[in-house]
């Protein structure tokens, strides 16, 4: 089951977005699966996030990074995979009013 969420354009920072997504993962007991730019019904810019119901995962422990190109994203993914931090999603989000490329990994389970 997919749970749609939307966040305001004026998210203070990438860390603010991380905390909010982690809070949603924890509150919904669901895993983040996508982040993308969107509009709301009033045609205002928002960040759309989708969550998928999941239990038994290390929910609420994410790593957010900004990437420049697809190549950069691939390199980051390769590095994190070697540290047992799987890719969660790659997309775009509004940070302080600006659209940014964001890539998310899940922290390794201790």
């Amino acid at each position, binding site marked *: 089951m997919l*749970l*749609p*969420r*939307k*966040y*305001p354009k004026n*998210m*203070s920072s990438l860390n*603010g*977005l991380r*905390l*909010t997504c*982690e*809070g*949603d*993962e*924890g*509150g*919904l*007991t*669901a895993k983040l699966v996508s982040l*993308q*730019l*969107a*509009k*709301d*019904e009033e045609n205002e810019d*928002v960040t*759309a996030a989708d969550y998928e*119901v999941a*239990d*038994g995962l*290390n*929910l*609420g*422990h994410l790593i957010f990074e900004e990437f420049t*190109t*697809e*190549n*950069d994203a*691939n*390199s980051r*993914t*390769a*590095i994190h*995979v*070697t540290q047992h931090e799987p890719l969660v999603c790659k*997309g*775009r989000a509004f940070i302080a009013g600006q*659209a940014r*490329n964001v890539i998310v990994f899940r922290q390794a389970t201790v």
Partner: protein
Amino acid sequence: MTTIKLTLLLGVVFLSTACPKYQPAVDFKNPGTFINKLNVHLKDAQHNYECYRFGPNHVDAQGRNCTGYVQDLAKAKAVRNELLESALPFIDNAYADFVIDLQAGRDRANFVADVLELGTTATVGITNGDRPLQILGVGLTAFRGGRRSADLNFFKEQTTPVLITKMDGNRARVRSTILAREQTSVDDYPLGAAISDIVDYYNAGTLVRAFTELQKDTAFLTKQSEAEVLVRKGVLTPEITKEAHDLRVGAQDSLQRLLRELNDAATKDSATKVLQNIVADLETDKDVSLILKKPEINVTSHDTDGLKLRESLIAMRRGAQLVNDTALLNKIDQVIVEHESAPRP
């Protein structure tokens, strides 16, 4: 006049193409070089790999039998990794030469072409007579067109640093994959797959792969632009505070630990008791007790199924989170954290 035209045409073609190479040259068949020794080493390594993997009754791909070997998958893995690591430096070496040639060759060709173009432009400024000016003008246009065509067709209008960066990135990605796969067993990552990765590593450092990857980048950016038209309904979730975040994640971690305890026969009963206490505590709150009685939640502190108690708490939290009912969530999460972290009898 025909000679001038012909010279002009050939000059444009020669100076603008710079004869590009598309891939590094790795000659594994060149006799008398270290590569040849490597080939022998690879054959031996493959023999050792197959014998350690399949044991003394195996006959390898070259027809040699494995008498005297004892099946040992750890040794087979070590041989496989050694084989991989000894082949990759040759590709690195060829790639380094290729990049230097690519950079130097294109720089030189562009420099000569720039001098020629600037020289011709200057000549136009100091030449008298309509006919010579016309010839120089046509020649200059043709030359610029030829350079543009070469950039477009041979290098897809990409600058050399962009192509090299792309190839470096492609190679780094494949290298990381190889390093990660080296940790896996020979069943999960057999020698055939390792050799396939060596080929992939080589291909990652070619211009053709760089072009296709750059094309993918463009496709990705287009997709991102298209994604902007998505219209998202529902409530807007404001940025969470640090305190609320910690409480949310803390409660989730508590529920996660309780699930582990419920799945363990030794701790199942105490975990169920904790969940009953959580629900009992929530029942004392007038607002929350109404929610507990809703058909989709339907739980009481007298329930003895630990998994059901936990599922009900999750459903209640999820419902509150979806409508951003922070007050209710905080109430539930505080009770969960307090009871789960309290010492157990």
